């Protein structure tokens, strides 16, 4: 669980079963365990109205545990980008009263929330739970490029190559933290790189 630092920084909770008939779960990697834990509190038949969309990590773990919940629909996606067209359609056609549950890395939660916000779902009506890596999705304020899975502080922009301070300032619209050049005033100053978001 990431520590709360500043007000724009997202705060995540713990998934809990919500009333309703339609439930959409979007999770990656260890986010699967948040769903499995929640399932222990779910009423009988809960997953009969649920769709689970899962992006396994590199190790491919947790697929069987989610299948065992017997959701009405289960979809495996290799990456968030590959999931995007399907997710846009699902959210665009969603019934009033669809419950949304997002679990896993901050990058997954943020990007799924971004698509849901564009579909008109209020961010406060989504359940979120952070599990697994603290890696951040970062927008370079200079070139506007997004760098995925940033684990270090500072971090190099994968687009323009500037060395960036990864701030806690977060934009839901961009689903990204802000990266600002850390040695803009004197490029010869190179601070040590630390593994800040493992």
């Amino acid at each position, binding site marked *: 669980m990431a520590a709360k630092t500043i*007000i*724009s920084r997202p705060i995540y909770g713990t998934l809990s079963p919500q009333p309703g008939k339609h439930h959409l779960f979007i999770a990656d990697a260890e986010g699967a365990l948040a769903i499995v834990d929640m399932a222990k509190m779910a009423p009988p038949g809960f997953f009969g109205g649920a769709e689970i969309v899962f992006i396994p990590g590199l190790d491919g773990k947790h697929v069987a545990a989610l299948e065992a919940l017997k959701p009405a629909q289960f979809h495996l996606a290799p990456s968030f980008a590959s999931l995007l067209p399907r997710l846009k359609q699902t959210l665009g056609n969603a019934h009033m009263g669809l419950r949304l549950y997002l679990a896993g890395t901050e990058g997954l939660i943020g990007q799924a929330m971004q698509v849901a916000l564009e579909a008109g779902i209020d961010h406060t009506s989504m359940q979120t739970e952070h599990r697994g890596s603290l890696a951040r999705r970062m927008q370079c304020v*200079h070139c*506007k490029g997004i760098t995925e899975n940033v684990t270090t502080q500072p971090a190099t922009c994968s687009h323009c190559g500037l060395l960036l301070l990864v701030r*806690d300032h977060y*934009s839901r*619209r961009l689903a990204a933290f802000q990266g600002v050049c850390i040695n803009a005033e004197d490029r010869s100053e190179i601070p040590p790189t630390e593994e800040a978001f493992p």
Partner: protein
Amino acid sequence: MGITFRKETFRDDFTFRNSPEHIRRFPFPFHEDAYMYAVNIEPHVVGPKGSVLENLIDVDEHYVAEMQDRALVLAEDPLRCQSLPHMTLAGWDLLELLMEQQALGYPEHFTLTRDGDRWRWINRPLGIDDTFTFGDTSTLPYGPMEYITRQSQGDFCILDQRDGNLWMDAGMVTTQADWSLDFDIGMNFFEWHAPVPLAHEKGIFTRALKFLTNIQQGKPARRLNWTMTINPRLDTSPENYHKWGPDRTTVTPENVGDKVHLRVELQSFWRLPRSNGIVFPIRCYLIKMDELVTQPKWARRLHRVIRDLPEELATYKGLTRYRPTLVEWLSKLDDGSPTSPGFGPD
């Protein structure tokens, strides 16, 4: 008698200067010999003749040059002007406000004629004479917010009011003190202020939001904010920080007076009539140390303020690197004698 607009630059050769009359009218932001955050909001009413408050929307000798600099910024980076889709009506509200105020304060430079929805706008300093239909975006060369803010000094944020909060949903931001509209657009009041140190803990933003959401039409409010900028550069955006940041390493005891500028923002807050939004003009005034210290009271007071500024604030305002050089330079102009109360020069 009209304003004589200066030909000057805010980049490259930095020819920006204030005339002696503009030095005297500079909105010096310190009413005492120390500075700390406060909810320093007051009614935005007309002030003394010859001050920056003589008109509620101030146009000064830098108008033409500032508009030219804005056009350069937008050509490089169009993302400095953005408006979310639901904000067009508020853009028309802003167009009306700025045309009315500029025509009212400076009739020799600006004329607005209305015949129902057919409006004619003449802007003599920029050589503009346009007739358009109010409310019909297809009759203007830009959206209404962009059109009028390409002709108005200062940055402009338009805030949507809903759920008891204010949302930064549109803006023209080319002269900002190191914050990004492109990153912050769509955020609420607390979120876009998140990086400001100390003020959240003091409850500043909770009280400020309460005040702002209650602003009524025809009763605008204002506050001053300040920072410092090396060279008279308007575009101190985070987008270009890697380009202007090195300026901060160039301050020496010999060039403090010419390079270091006090940057004051006159922020005002206006309720918009049709959209119920709030527009938040952020008008930036720059003055170099050599100009500022022609007023001995300001020199003494600025020395004490900068010397005693809490470290977190100095860091947030980006002063750390050159503060010792600046304080040393200012100290020679501070004989320790008391300063009179209030903002103005003696």
